[in-house]
């Protein structure tokens, strides 16, 4: 079984609030199997009790502990120190696409507001007299992939439309394309979100850079399985001349 002898490592952590901030260096002992979140907790308990960090499950299940580690958006609780070069300072920063609250904690409430604007699940009438439905596993599979999402918002953090162009008022971001795809492809759902995708959610801003897919800790194939099929639906609806003709008639 692999194990590491305890050693010292240097962590360069962003400290700050709405007023501004700076990096602060902390040296601490690191040992067998530790993850970045363990190191942050150790520093918090021993050196900086008011260091702000958000976390819950410590098992990659809740999506609370998102941060940027050496420049890459990751879950702190699933990033092993053994996967990082400890001869250099480990740089830990908050996500950049959201306003900073304090230290490693950002204000992600925008995401929760966006979700409310997406028309909710609307099932067809039940299939059986007892009020239940029949769904084949093969039809559930595709949507189950999307429903693995832990709402860590790392995909939102890397998307240039939000991160660089700050289109938060117009563009819902990859997380909510995954959410919309889960609803649109749900075997029971009957609502139509295609007009919203084009006009309100600005799906067209996405130029399929795949940055979001690359950081998803749940390995959801965000671009290929969610965004591209949604773009196809928009194209079919609005840009297919034959179909448009039919609708006019």
């Amino acid at each position: 079984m692999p194990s590491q002898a305890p050693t010292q490592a240097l962590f360069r952590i962003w400290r700050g609030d709405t007023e501004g901030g700076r990096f602060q260096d902390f040296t601490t002992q690191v040992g067998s199997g530790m993850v970045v979140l363990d190191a942050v907790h150790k520093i918090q308990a021993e050196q900086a009790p008011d260091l702000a960090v958000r976390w819950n499950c410590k098992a990659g299940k809740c999506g609370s502990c998102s941060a940027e580690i050496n420049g890459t958006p990751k879950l702190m609780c699933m990033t092993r120190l053994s996967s990082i070069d400890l001869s250099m300072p480990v740089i830990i920063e908050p996500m950049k696409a959201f306003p900073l609250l304090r230290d490693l904690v950002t204000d992600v409430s925008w995401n929760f507001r966006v979700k409310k604007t997406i028309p909710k699940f609307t099932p067809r009438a039940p299939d059986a007299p007892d009020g239940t439905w029949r769904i084949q596993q093969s039809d559930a599979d595709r949507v189950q992939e999307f429903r693995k999402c832990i709402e860590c918002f790392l995909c939102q953090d890397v998307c240039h439309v939000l991160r660089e162009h700050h289109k938060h008022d117009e563009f819902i971001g990859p997380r909510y394309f995954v959410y919309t795809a889960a609803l649109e492809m749900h075997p029971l759902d009957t609502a139509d979100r295609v007009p919203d995708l084009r006009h309100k959610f600005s799906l067209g801003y996405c130029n399929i850079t795949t940055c979001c897919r690359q950081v998803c800790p749940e390995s959801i194939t965000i671009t290929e399985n969610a965004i591209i099929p949604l773009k196809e639906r928009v194209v079919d609806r609005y840009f297919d001349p034959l179909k448009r003709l039919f609708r006019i008639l």
Partner: protein
Amino acid sequence: MPEYQTHPYDVLIVGAGGAGLRAAIEAASSGLKVGVVTKSLLGKAHTVMAEGGVAAALANVDERDNWRVHFSDTMRGGQYLNNWRMAELHAREAPDRVRELEAWGALFDRTSDGRILQRNFGGHRYPRLAHVGDRTGLEMIRTLQDHGIHTGIEVHMECTVLTLLTDSGRIAGAFGFDRERGHFLLWPAKAVVLATGGIGRAYQITSNSWEYTGDGHALAYRAGAELLDMEFVQFHPTGMVWPPSVRGLLVTEGVRGEGGVLRNSEGRRFMFDDIPELYKTQTAASEDEGWRYTQGDKEARRPPELLTRDHVARCINREVKAGRGSPHGGVFLDIAWIKTHLPNAAEHIRRKLPSMYHQFKQLADIDITREPMEVGPTTHYMMGGVRVDGDSQMSTVPGLFAAGEVAAGLHGANRLGGNSLSDLLVFGKRAGQFAADFARAHSAPAVDRAQAGAAAQAALEPFDRGAAGENPFQIQHELQERMQALVGIVRTESEMHQALELLDAFSARAARAGVPGHRQYNNGWHTALDLPQLLTVSEAITRAALLRQESRGAQFREDFPGKDPEWGKHNIVVRRGDAGEMLVEPRPVTPMPAELTQIIEEMK
């Protein structure tokens, strides 16, 4: 007094896990103004971590299942100390509550004819757990969240309730603060539903998150409510033991449900060596019969690995103590062995247990499709909690309700896996409904601003002491370590007396806790404010465990290793005396009606 904002509600729900969200949806459905307060962000509560499944006698996989079997399984698991009315309602209503989730968008795994698939779990006679791989809790909380946000409820994310307010004995609301910004908040309410979850952070080795500091238990106790069954803390048999930083992290019972077996360092399936009398007729006689059971053979009986959690945890403890443990102080849990029976075993395991596969691969460098895991007991679930009426979930304080893990009764001395998620749905709905009824039937209570003021003053004290005060993380850490050692899986009178003395000392230290910095998202401050709740529940657990001089369910007393029939007829109630002292007393179990007794007899 420090400033605060006021947000009045008809019904205030404290907690946004499965129980809180289900209660909120129900209360809001009747048009009342409903507020939800949660310590973390929406969708991050403990419920998100649940893995194995939600128990409901849908009878989709085995048509012999029905609510009566589920009822008797739950009562047997709880060693008959359960509130039988809750066990009955739970078994009867769980199937509808699960189907309702499907109508709200949940997508459970399917049977070949397209219905909701169910899996085996410890103590359940038939495959009963509806599930989505091993991320059932995520599916459940997300469904409730996505449905709930369209029902008009207002959610106060990252806010902590510090105290409940009362008006001449009746509930009047709650007072607390916003963790993000440090502002104080007052929530006047006609009815309050506590759905705050458990107490696992009172122990060092736990599967529970930072939120589980027993807030609801302590708040209710201080508001005058009775607590019940506080001695029954569930230690789940299979937590990770290595590496140290993940010690305690849960390994779902689903691994054993899918055919995983427990072995000691000699390679022996030691669970076959000790099968309790109560379960003899239901347990497999051979390894082969056990395997056939996990693969759906209806003639076969379940393997001993799927006996109740209290028993499996003690057997593991015994193997480790006898020197037959694994290198890091656990035993081996092997699912990889099923490749000798299944051609595509590795793929099957990854499909059925995806998050376990990733958890071990990423955190321990173990490929569970090839090698065994190392596991040992971890603090997991609190059977004890606020004593409630079985039908309405109202506590002994008028207008104060409790549902989910913070409420007691359904599980008795030991909870069966899967019975918590169903508990949240059944009793979350009931609490929401009865709280709404209560709010409609009563006028707004008077809010005593002095109660709020005192809580705010006390909350700010750690800043007065600043960095010169005691480090709250250090106090919490030592408390957890002592509770684990002295009031853990194996208990004895002298150690628990020692624990009580130490708890006094910890209280004195908690009163000296200090934190530097300001009120915005200050984790040190949050930890300091959690300490009084942790200390109250630790004391309640210890006093109840001392009083119960027997071993039953989750409580194992080394000095009283047998069951005492007298104690089998009593629960223990904890309440606050007039002088603020903690009172602990036995309370006779209410006799079961004849038709329920008959069900239990028939199912024996």
